[in-house]
């Protein structure tokens, strides 16, 4: 069995695991702020880049939640560089491997303070 290990602060690790390493029966709703500010752009990007809106919203909400500066978020959405769509595809990749069983388990371990 193979294992990939990340280490980071609890706030980010826990949220990251919940957002990207669980199969979600119920869609993760982005914050009101993210939806209000970026909703239209994300919908447009989802159509043009052929990625699922829920993944785009999840990525944006994750970045917003963990302190990405507003200017960076604006740039990410407006630049249309493809980076945001790629991140949404990454989220989709993880979901696919969760569903097909390639990712067997996800554990959060306390390394101590």
């Amino acid at each position: 069995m193979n294992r990939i290990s990340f280490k980071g602060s609890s706030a980010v690790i826990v949220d990251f695991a919940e957002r990207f390493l669980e199969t979600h029966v119920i869609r993760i709703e982005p914050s009101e702020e993210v939806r209000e500010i970026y909703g239209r752009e994300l919908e447009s990007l989802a159509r043009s880049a052929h990625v699922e809106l829920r993944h785009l919203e999840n990525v944006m909400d994750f970045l917003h939640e963990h302190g990405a500066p507003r200017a960076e978020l604006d740039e990410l959405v407006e630049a249309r560089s493809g980076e945001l769509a790629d991140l949404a595809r990454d989220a989709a990749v993880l979901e696919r491997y969760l569903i097909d069983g390639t990712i067997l388990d996800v554990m959060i371990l306390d390394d101590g303070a």
Partner: protein
Amino acid sequence: MSDLSHIEALRDGVAAWNVWRRMNPGLIPDLSGSNIKVRGLSGIDLSGADMRGVMLAGADLSGALLRGADLTGADLMEADLSGADLSGADLTGANLMGADLSGADLTGAGLDGAILYRADLEGSECVSRHLWLNQIIDFANGLGCVDGEGEAFVFDDMEDSTVESSFMSTRMLRLEVELSDPVPAKAIYEILGALNRLYGMVADQDLPGPIIRIGPSGEGDGG
């Protein structure tokens, strides 16, 4: 804007100010936006005062009563706030860089966006969690708590504070993703790449950033 008579009253000294406050219990001092030249303000009663945007860099506010004061956007850089009562104060966006907050009561204080770079928070009633202080977190809407020793401190009871939205951590955690065996190389690369890119987007803000390794389970379990 500030009330000039209130600023004048400050020049009479802390003792006179505190007497004045006791004689005018219903009065809310308005010092907003003012550049207060008086630096010796130890023990002063500024509870509930409107101090939005006040400039008090380097001031001695040790033991001051600032309970419920509105210090939004205040410049308190390198101010001595040791032992001050800042419970319920609004310090949103305040510059507390290098301020001495040791022993201060920050219970319920709003600290969103406050700059606490190199602030000394040791022993203060701040948050019910460890703070990882060995890194600088200082950006929009973020909260930075830094200490030269790089130590994590534990604070008590700040459940109602807005600190929750900042980038502090109770502790370091490890995320283990177990893959099937055998697993196609393509899947490993895709998963590792996805994890790296997604996590990497916040890694600069996270502490100390991701440590990624891949290998058979059982390796590196010593933590």
